[in-house]
């Protein structure tokens, strides 16, 4: 076990961690605007990647245009899902809304199964150059940098959006204080719809970014989504920074775990970490009011 291997593992952990962080951002966006947990988030990610592949391979659209189209389409799917499914059950108990998002997730992966079949798909890297080698013999690929950069940019823009713009503030107000939002004339219904569209588009962008790194398949969304959710909880539920931090921690943990335990256990590690966090440090790494309230 040399230092280079550990470093290389750490780096690949950061990459997958950034993808978890991107997915977690989508969860947080919906949660902060609606107090709903959207378990279909992973399928938005899958849809983003798969639609890009579809656009490029079946219709020969250029990469960038295809990716933009996929993000737009997935955003529309998010809006449609909100109007058709979440809106009618907005006043129903929590369990119903959780199950409804599971239903959305099943329908989306079912649709992907019909559209794309069962074979795993991949994309070429977003940037044309291949990457470079650090002095210690550690390889850094361009896609890794792209993912990390995108994660940073999206984190920053979401923070600014929710703190500095009227729209972002209104969306958060709608979830924080329902009566207050109604009184000052914020439409909760519209803000819910926008939040779903936004986070679906955001998930699709994550999908476009990670498809070159991993293979994407019609049923990949479930596990990706759950790990993104776990990341958001580990970092401190409810904050954008916590989501990304939790993602990075989770990614590095999984990747370094590979050095010490058999590879098959990797997918379980996230949930062990999650249960440990929930049991021992219930507010997450950064601290979260929502989490602490949930564990009284």
């Amino acid at each position, binding site marked *: 076990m040399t230092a280079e291997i550990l470093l290389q593992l750490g780096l690949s952990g950061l990459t997958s961690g950034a993808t978890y962080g991107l997915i977690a951002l989508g969860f947080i966006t919906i949660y902060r605007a609606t107090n709903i947990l959207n378990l279909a988030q992973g399928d938005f990610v899958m849809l983003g990647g798969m639609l890009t592949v579809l656009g490029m391979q079946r219709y020969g659209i250029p990469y960038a245009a295809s990716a933009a189209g996929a993000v737009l389409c997935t955003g529309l799917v998010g809006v449609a899902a909100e109007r058709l499914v979440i809106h009618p059950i907005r006043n129903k108990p929590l*369990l119903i809304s959780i199950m409804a998002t599971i*239903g959305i997730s099943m329908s989306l992966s079912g649709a992907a*199964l019909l559209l794309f079949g069962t074979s795993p798909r991949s994309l070429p890297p977003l940037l044309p150059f291949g990457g470079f080698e650090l002095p210690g013999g550690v390889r850094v690929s361009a896609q890794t940098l792209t993912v990390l950069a995108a994660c940073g940019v999206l984190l920053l823009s979401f923070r600014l959006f929710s703190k500095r713009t009227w729209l972002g503030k209104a969306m958060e107000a709608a979830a924080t204080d329902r009566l207050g939002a109604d009184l000052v004339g914020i439409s909760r219904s519209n803000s819910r719809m926008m939040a779903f569209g936004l986070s679906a588009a955001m998930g699709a962008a994550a999908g476009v970014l990670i498809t070159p790194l991993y293979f994407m398949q019609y049923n990949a969304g479930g596990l990706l989504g759950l790990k993104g959710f776990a990341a958001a909880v580990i970092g401190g539920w409810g904050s954008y920074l916590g989501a990304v931090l939790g993602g990075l921690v989770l990614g590095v943990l999984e990747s370094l775990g590979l050095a010490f335990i058999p590879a098959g256990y990797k997918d379980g590690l996230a949930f062990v970490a999650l249960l440990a966090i929930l049991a021992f440090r219930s507010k997450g790494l950064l601290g979260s009011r929502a989490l602490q309230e949930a564990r009284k």
Partner: protein
Amino acid sequence: MRVKQLLFTRMEVYLVILAALMPLWLNSVSFHHVMTIAGLYAMGALGLSVFMGFAGQISIGHSAFVGLGAYTTAILAVKTPLPTMACLAASAVVPGLTAWIMGRPILKLREYFLALATIGLVQIFQVLTTELDWLTGGVEGLYNLPWLSVFGLSFDRPLEQVYLVWALVYLAFLFSRNLCSSAYGRAFRIVAASEDTARTLGISPESMKTRAFVFSAVTAGLAGGLYACVFGSVSPQAFGLDMSVMLVLMVIVGGMGSLPGTLAGSLLITWLATWLSGYQQYSLIVYGIILIMLLVFFPEGIFRGIGARWVDLVRTYADQDWRKELRR
């Protein structure tokens, strides 16, 4: 003075006799097979119904307990010379103990976090069963399990299996019904309504939630043990999130807080799933859409939902002034 517990109503005895004649009357192997599966699900869903409908908690992770029960029975039956009945009994004990140990930390959580933690249990269970292949047989699982035999009577034909499973389901149903109408059931409902109220009344919410959790894990484990006995094989894929979602759906469709509804819901959803599985690649999307439709149009459960609509309809037409209502 003790309150006398209700055991049966007269109507129920007639219904049970009719239901007991069903497998003989509709005598086909495929019918028996599907009814056996429905019975397994009903067993798992009963405990979950107590946990969710009465104690007011959320669990999308009970397939882990079903799997734990199934693997307990399978491992004991393959690797030890224990009689199969003891293996089946162990399938109730091991998940119960696991739930008792895991209960305290997990049940402190609420809402989404409880749901997530229980989903986490399923994922961890899947990874463990796949990876510990010296014990569990890995991805392929364990097969060629011996049939359950009780004092020389071997349950190896679908007809016998239907009776075995449904007899146990009925026992579990009677037990859950009495449990829910006992002091425990009332305590569960108070905990569900408000934990602070429960504390003021001297009921410990933690202990009540843990008991409901353990009970649900025991029935789920028993369902798993029966699964192993009936199918003769277990594998990790069978106990994934899909099964958990199906169990929760049965409870919701049957109506939260209704035990007969849960039985009916498990019959309905099992038949739906069996019917859909014939359509291969279309089954996933159709299942997802039906799930959404059930939740959107019948969030209180399909029987209650249809019942309410029927009552509305009757009331509208039975009303003396319904023509006036329509004209208005």
